[in-house]
């Protein structure tokens, strides 16, 4: 059964960290460059994120994502290089197109920030099972109902997609055109909606009843099947990232 997850099963120091520490680490490495606001801090955070991805042996997974964003990056350099509001110093010219240093520098900062956001997020996403992350958050006070919604959606959406395909096959077997021109394909989705929505509503009600008879609404404190294992590296990492955040704020305020 497919679930909505990019988690990559590996044995590594990063995989062994508890989800909340990873969430804290990711959030810090993502926020610090925005607080400090210069290229150097962004480069440092990006370097740390790439090192973490490398240690977790999942770095290759982000190359395709970064490659996909190449068009966006090129567009960014062209627009900022030529039209950035603070453009003063000419860098080079391609015929009549003039590119400025200030614009190119700003485009570099935006690009590095973008790469940093992607790589920081991937440290969490590629090395953490979504269910583990949600369970960790529920342990720390997230409502079990919200936790359930987040966890179930990862499996139930693929189920709904599978149901959609079954209903489409049923419609197709009765002669409905579902392929060809865009208009034909769009028309095919209209008769799909009623059975899909109805079956989803019925399934939701039945699932709600099934949850109720398994004490989902119980008001007592929940317990957990799995013991939460906090790695010995968790505390130093949380302390270091907290110090990094504090240092970034001080840097911003003082300088």
């Amino acid at each position: 059964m497919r679930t909505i997850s990019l988690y990559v099963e590996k044995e590594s120091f990063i995989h062994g960290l508890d989800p909340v520490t990873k969430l804290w680490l990711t959030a810090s490495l993502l926020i610090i460059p925005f607080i400090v606001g210069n290229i150097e801090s962004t480069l440092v955070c990006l370097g740390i994120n790439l090192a973490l991805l490398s240690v977790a042996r999942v770095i290759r997974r982000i190359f395709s994502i970064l490659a996909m964003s190449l068009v966006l990056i090129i567009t960014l350099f062209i627009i900022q290089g030529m039209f950035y509001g603070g453009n003063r110093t000419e860098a080079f010219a391609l015929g009549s197109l003039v590119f400025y240093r200030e614009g190119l520098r700003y485009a570099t900062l935006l690009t590095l920030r973008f790469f940093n956001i992607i790589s920081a997020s991937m440290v969490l996403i590629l090395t953490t099972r979504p269910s583990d992350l949600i369970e960790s958050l529920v342990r720390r006070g997230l409502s079990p109902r919200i936790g359930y919604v987040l966890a179930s959606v990862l499996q139930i959406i693929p189920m709904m997609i599978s149901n959609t395909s079954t209903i489409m096959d049923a419609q197709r077997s009765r002669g409905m055109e579902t392929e060809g021109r865009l208009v034909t394909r769009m028309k095919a989705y209209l008769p799909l909606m009623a059975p899909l929505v109805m079956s989803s509503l019925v399934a939701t009600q039945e699932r709600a009843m099934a949850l109720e008879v398994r004490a989902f609404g119980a008001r007592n404190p929940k317990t957990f099947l799995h013991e939460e294992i906090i790695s010995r590296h968790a505390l130093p990492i949380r302390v270091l990232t907290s110090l990094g955040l504090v240092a970034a704020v001080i840097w911003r305020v003082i300088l």
Partner: protein
Amino acid sequence: MKPEVMVQDLSYRYDDGEEKALDGVSFEVYPGEFLGVVGPNKAGKSTLCQALVGLVPHFFHGNMDGRVVAGGIDTRETTVDELSKTVGLVFQNPFTQVTGAKLTVYEEIAFGLENIGLPRDEITRRVDEMIALFGLEHVRHHNPFELSGGQMQRMAIASIMALRPRIVALDEPTSQLDPQGSAEVFQAVAALRNQGLTVIMAEQKVEKIARYADRVLLMHKGKVAACDRPEVVFSRDNLLDLGIRPPAYTSVARELDLRRPDGTLPVTLDDAVALLRNSSVNS
């Protein structure tokens, strides 16, 4: 003997219903008994099962009269999650009973136990026990959605039984399963019987009910049409008028006028064969 389940003059109408789904239903079930509930569509079987676990009236807010007492608890005076420790309910559709929030069969069975706040070692003990009882060892690490219909329904029963209820209601648990899946579920229900549980099972497969049930509750249009031993209920002349087809062996025996000394017809293959042998010897 004190009844385990007491349903007294139970009537219920859904908020959007024109007619009563249940109309003056009364019966009792005794500890360790297997009560089969049969009846055509819209007879009120599902509503009755939902009333036994308190979903009616706590989940569906309609008009309810009468009372249901299960395991000594009046279902109106407690919550569904509190009742779940005494009465379990298994639904028709195995797919919609999967929570969707757990990644393995093992975790799925543990879901209810986490909700009632059991300690971890007790959870693992109970889940291991249920996995062994319902023959799910080879799929314990599988994703629940990857199971066959029969396995999924057995997992659903195991999830309910892990809460250790004294009474379990099953609402047509085999209606969406193939013969193999149905056989697996009935074997699981037989395992519950052997543990001394009180079983109330709504089911369309009358041959199976005739084989497993101690008594049969025949429902029609929300009312109790009969409640007696299977051979008494299935020997009635007006079964087809009530929307129920008798077991195949009973129909054959009726054609052959093959009756027990008390005038009832055989309802299982073994009964029919024994009667046929006796009649051959006598003739």
